């Protein structure tokens, strides 16, 4: 808990500016010496220092030394994105005895050197302005104290595949209580459906089964199978999760798993778990090793003859009146391990899947060759039930395909190699195997050797993309047409069966999970990590971690290690009694508050209370620091710490001090659009350097005054960057509040004679760097098309009206 601490007596500002070269990352484009020289001319700046690598230990030491020796009381670091190193330097500053909230970063790498490589002069200008803006803000900064919240030392794992199982076991072994939510009837995930695993060819369920049982028997683990995640509230250390246990119509405590009900049941339906190759009874378990071993009735097929009830007899485990049951749990950390789905190529008619009976997918082949599968391990054709003698495998079906899924699905090469080795070792000379591939990707321990093993077994590898498959309508044999790119000629292979190694795709329902947990997804639909390299298991939401294929496809060993990794990351939170959260919350000036209650409705978290005749009150622990209430307050009574109106306005003034007509003022939300803009820099997307960006935590913070002030100062254009509607907002609905506000504002400004293209709201996700660059390019060309004179003329007309409006406020 903190409140702004006004310094006892106003001391003279002593700002230190540290300009980072970042090797040549910044210095290669931006003239860092010019930036440093420029910094010296800014009022209140008493010390300027250039560093080759500010974030390295010597660079940090320079900062500490300067703070002590030069008695600096404000620090500006012109380096990379604050999303990268803000926490690092916060520690550095604190180590030197300065409050860690008295420093600001100027992003001159992602926002200057990397994205304006074609125009070093403009990049340098932008970097100078960035430093000026940072100094303007840092002048007004106040020391803040970090807030501590208690931590619930329990965790929930969403998804019980091999990654989730490992995360659960690791956490449970460390002594934490773990809840596991699994949407299907059994934990185990895809691995439980596999026959053997590459490259060792050991039986999949034999190695996973014991782990599944361990999970069920561990005293610290509670499994909610057949359950869905419904709702999640709260913040790191203090999540309240609502789970819905869907009815199985069997009481888990009473079911002994004997299976007598199954024998009595007359109804069968296709077993989805068997890829619909075989059937299961209307009351059954999906597979023998199901954990938890509880039968379920599928009421979509049940005819309600009650033969199962009769068979169950005195055990009395069957309850046809079971209703969905909601359970509330409190946890400190969440591990998301929802896994993936396998693409079924019905929309690729040239391959004939769904049309020709003997074209199957790799997952279906897996169930065919599995001894416990529906055919008892016999590979047979659907058309005649006979064993195929010539089998063609086709790789990259859907993957690495611009029209379907542009990415590589990671493990299909390897599982196809496993299939062909299994076939060759089982049927020897009795089977001819062809593999059509683009590249065989085998980067893993023992993987390349496994590829050799397949080649030694006499498998025919044909490098080429398959163009189409035809079927002989009488024999149902298939003709595979392809190109042999090594021979440079077309090739036709007749096969009895074709196996398609199809792409793996984001799990159905990922959007729902993303919405509930406030996660963002990349362009392919997989969850976005906080940082692809340094935080591969952290979600952008604090306290949420990823394991396994849900954040990008992974094979079993990688998923297992991620499960353990995520467990370790979660343990860093739940092993602590208290967790520190940033004090960038809102506070109410009780004297200014007119008790109108507008803020209460606008707070996405319900963190504001306003009782009759009392000034509004903010519940500190529930405030997430979006700043929406600040922008909404009609009497300017609310302040967001670290992002005060004065600070943002100072940045706007600094940005637009010179040639405002040539500049685009961008106010970007921290989580999506600022991250997207960072990505544009990281991806070296070149865009015009006329943009000046200000970071706020949420687009909901963007008050009308910011836009009006920018236009009053004559900005060429104003851009507000937000998370995508409807669900991407990191603060639930800040983007909607901003939209309501700006829609009205834009209509008004247009009516006052401003060209509508000069004020733009754009939704940019953290994955849309290219999109951000395009937006800036577009606005810049529109600005140029309007011309400086037109903008100035418009501004001259607008200025008195805007001044009047701002004065009234």
């Amino acid at each position, binding site marked *: 808990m903190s409140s702004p601490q006004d310094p006892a007596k106003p001391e003279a500002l002593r700002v230190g500016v540290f300009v980072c070269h970042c090797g040549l990352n910044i210095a290669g484009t931006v003239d860092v010496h010019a930036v440093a020289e420029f910094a010296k001319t800014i009022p209140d700046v008493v010390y300027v220092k250039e560093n080759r690598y500010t974030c390295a230990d010597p660079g940090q030491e320079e900062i500490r030394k300067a703070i002590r020796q030069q008695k600096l009381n404000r620090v500006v670091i012109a380096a990379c994105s604050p999303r990268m190193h803000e926490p690092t330097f916060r520690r550095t500053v604190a180590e030197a005895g300065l409050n860690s909230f008295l420093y600001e970063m100027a992003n001159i790498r992602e926002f200057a050197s990397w994205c304006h490589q074609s125009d070093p002069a403009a990049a340098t200008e932008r970097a100078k302005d960035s430093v000026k803006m940072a100094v303007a803000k840092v002048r007004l900064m106040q020391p803040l104290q970090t807030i501590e919240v208690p931590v619930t030392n329990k965790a929930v794992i969403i998804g019980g595949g091999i990654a989730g199982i490992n995360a659960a076991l690791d956490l449970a072994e460390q002594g934490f209580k773990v809840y596991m939510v699994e949407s299907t009837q059994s934990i185990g995930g895809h691995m439980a459906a596999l026959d053997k695993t590459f490259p060792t060819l050991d039986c999949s369920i034999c190695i996973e089964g014991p782990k599944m049982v361990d999970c069920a028997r561990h005293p610290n683990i509670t499994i909610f199978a057949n359950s869905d995640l419904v709702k999640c509230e709260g913040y790191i250390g203090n999540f309240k999760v609502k789970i819905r246990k869907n009815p199985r119509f069997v009481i888990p405590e009473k079911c002994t798993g004997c299976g007598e009900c199954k024998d009595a049941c007359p109804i069968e339906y296709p077993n989805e778990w068997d890829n619909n190759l*075989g059937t299961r009874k209307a009351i059954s378990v999906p597979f023998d090793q199901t954990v938890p071993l509880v039968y379920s009735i599928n009421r979509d097929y049940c*005819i309600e003859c009650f033969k199962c009830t009769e068979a169950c007899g005195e055990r009395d485990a069957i309850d046809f009146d079971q209703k969905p049951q909601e359970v509330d749990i409190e946890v400190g950390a969440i591990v998301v391990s929802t896994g993936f789905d396998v693409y079924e190529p019905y929309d690729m008619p040239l391959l004939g899947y769904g049309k020709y009976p003997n074209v199957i997918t790799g997952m279906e082949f897996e169930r065919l060759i599995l001894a416990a599968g*529906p055919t008892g391990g016999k590979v047979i054709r659907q058309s005649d039930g006979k064993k195929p003698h010539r089998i063609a495998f086709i790789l990259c079906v859907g993957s690495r395909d611009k029209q379907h899924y542009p990415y590589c699905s990671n493990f299909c090469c390897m599982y196809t190699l496993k299939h062909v080795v299994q076939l060759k070792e089982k049927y020897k000379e009795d089977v001819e195997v062809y593999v059509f591939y683009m590249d065989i990707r085998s980067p893993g321990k023992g993987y390349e050797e496994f590829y050799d093993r397949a080649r030694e077994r006499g498998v025919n590898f044909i490098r080429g993309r398959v163009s189409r498959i035809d079927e002989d309508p009488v024999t149902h044999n298939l003709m595979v047409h392809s190109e042999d790119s090594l021979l440079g000629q077309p090739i036709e292979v007749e096969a009895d069966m074709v196996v398609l190694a199809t792409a793996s795709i984001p799990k159905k329902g990922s959007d729902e999970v993303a919405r509930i947990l406030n996660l963002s997804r990349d362009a392919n639909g997989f969850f976005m990590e906080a940082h692809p390299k340094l935080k591969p298991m952290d979600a952008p939401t604090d306290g949420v971690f990823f394991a396994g294929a849900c954040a990008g496809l992974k094979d079993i060993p990688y998923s297992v290690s991620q499960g353990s990794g995520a467990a370790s990351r979660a343990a860093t939170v739940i092993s602590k009694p208290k967790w520190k959260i940033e004090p960038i919350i809102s506070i109410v000036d009780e004297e200014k508050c007119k008790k109108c209650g507008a803020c209460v409705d606008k707070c996405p978290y319900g963190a504001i209370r306003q009782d009759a005749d009392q000034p509004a009150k903010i519940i500190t622990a529930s405030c997430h620091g979006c700043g929406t209430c600040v922008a909404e307050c009609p009497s300017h009574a609310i302040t967001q710490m670290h992002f005060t109106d004065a600070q943002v306005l100072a940045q706007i003034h600094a940005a637009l001090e010179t040639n405002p007509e040539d500049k685009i003022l961008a106010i970007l939300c921290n989580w999506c659009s600022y991250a997207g803009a960072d990505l544009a820099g990281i991806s070296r997307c070149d865009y015009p350097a006329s943009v000046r960006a200000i970071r706020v935590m949420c687009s909901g913070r963007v008050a009308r005054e910011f836009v009006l002030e920018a236009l009053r100062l004559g900005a060429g254009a104003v851009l507000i960057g937000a998370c995508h509607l409807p669900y991407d907002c990191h603060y639930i609905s800040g983007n909607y509040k901003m939209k309501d506000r700006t829609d009205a504002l834009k209509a008004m400004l247009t009516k006052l004679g401003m060209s509508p293209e000069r004020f733009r709201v754009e939704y940019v996700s953290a994955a849309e760097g290219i999109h951000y660059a395009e937006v800036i390019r577009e606005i810049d060309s529109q600005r140029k098309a309007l011309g400086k004179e037109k903008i100035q003329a418009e501004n001259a007309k607008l200025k008195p009206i805007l001044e009047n409006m701002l004065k009234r406020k």
Partner: protein
Amino acid sequence: MPFKKTKSDAADALVLEWVLQVKNYKLNLDRNRCAGCQICTLACPRQAITTQKQPKQSDEPTKKAKVDIDLEKCNFCGICDVTCPYGAVKVIQNGSHDLAVLTKESYPQLIRDITVDTRRCDKECDECVTACPLSLITISKVGYDGQPVNDLSGLSPLAKRRVQVTLDIQKQYCPTCRACEFKCSSGAIKVKKCFEGKLAVDTEKCPPGCHECVDVCPITGTLTLDSKAKVVTAEQTCTFCGACKNVCPKPEALTVHRTKIFHTPVHSGAWNKTLERLTSPSDAVKEFKAQAAKTRRELVLHRFEVEEMKKK
């Protein structure tokens, strides 16, 4: 290709199919045998079956209602197969007609109680063959020499007496209307109806000149028109299938009410629900009570037996 659901609807058959790698389910509705009645629609536990009244062409007789089965809802349990009085539906699993609902005793079968005593037959009579409205009866006559006899007129009285008559009724398609029994002058055929109930037409309420029910009734003679073109009912041959009800334009004019169904004894929730839908809740309760009474009686008898054994 793992799992395929197909449906083909032709003029003479509706075929639904599930094709799996290791299993095959097929439902075949023979549209020629189907009477467009209410039974399967009411019996289906998934409510997958619907009947649709066909548009009437002005100069043609009314067509029977068309049965349609929803492929998404059907689970190939075979209850329609078991319950169809006309034997029009066949559910086949992997080529075999053994239905799990029957082998697992989770659904009863209709009892088509037909007894034929050909010794009583008049050797020259073939009234039953012509009487059967569905042409399910064939008679074959064999002389003493084992040769089939077609014309008895030329035979001597002795030879005539030695002619053996066999009467073949395709029981699986027989709705037990009893038309043959009534026509049989020698009382050789005895039929017990599997459905009992009431049939009534309130001619006051009939739209003038309407005879749609007469057109669709599969049992000729059950519904007829009198000289004033009013509908006349003959309840004794009615199978209470409700084909007429499906096409009747005035719902209040025609009543078909099933009260009792003869079936093999089975404890089944699915049957109880079917029974309730096919008859009425009160009629279903009657059967449940009768069943309960029977169980009690058996229990009491069993106890007496035990005590008698003890005495011995």
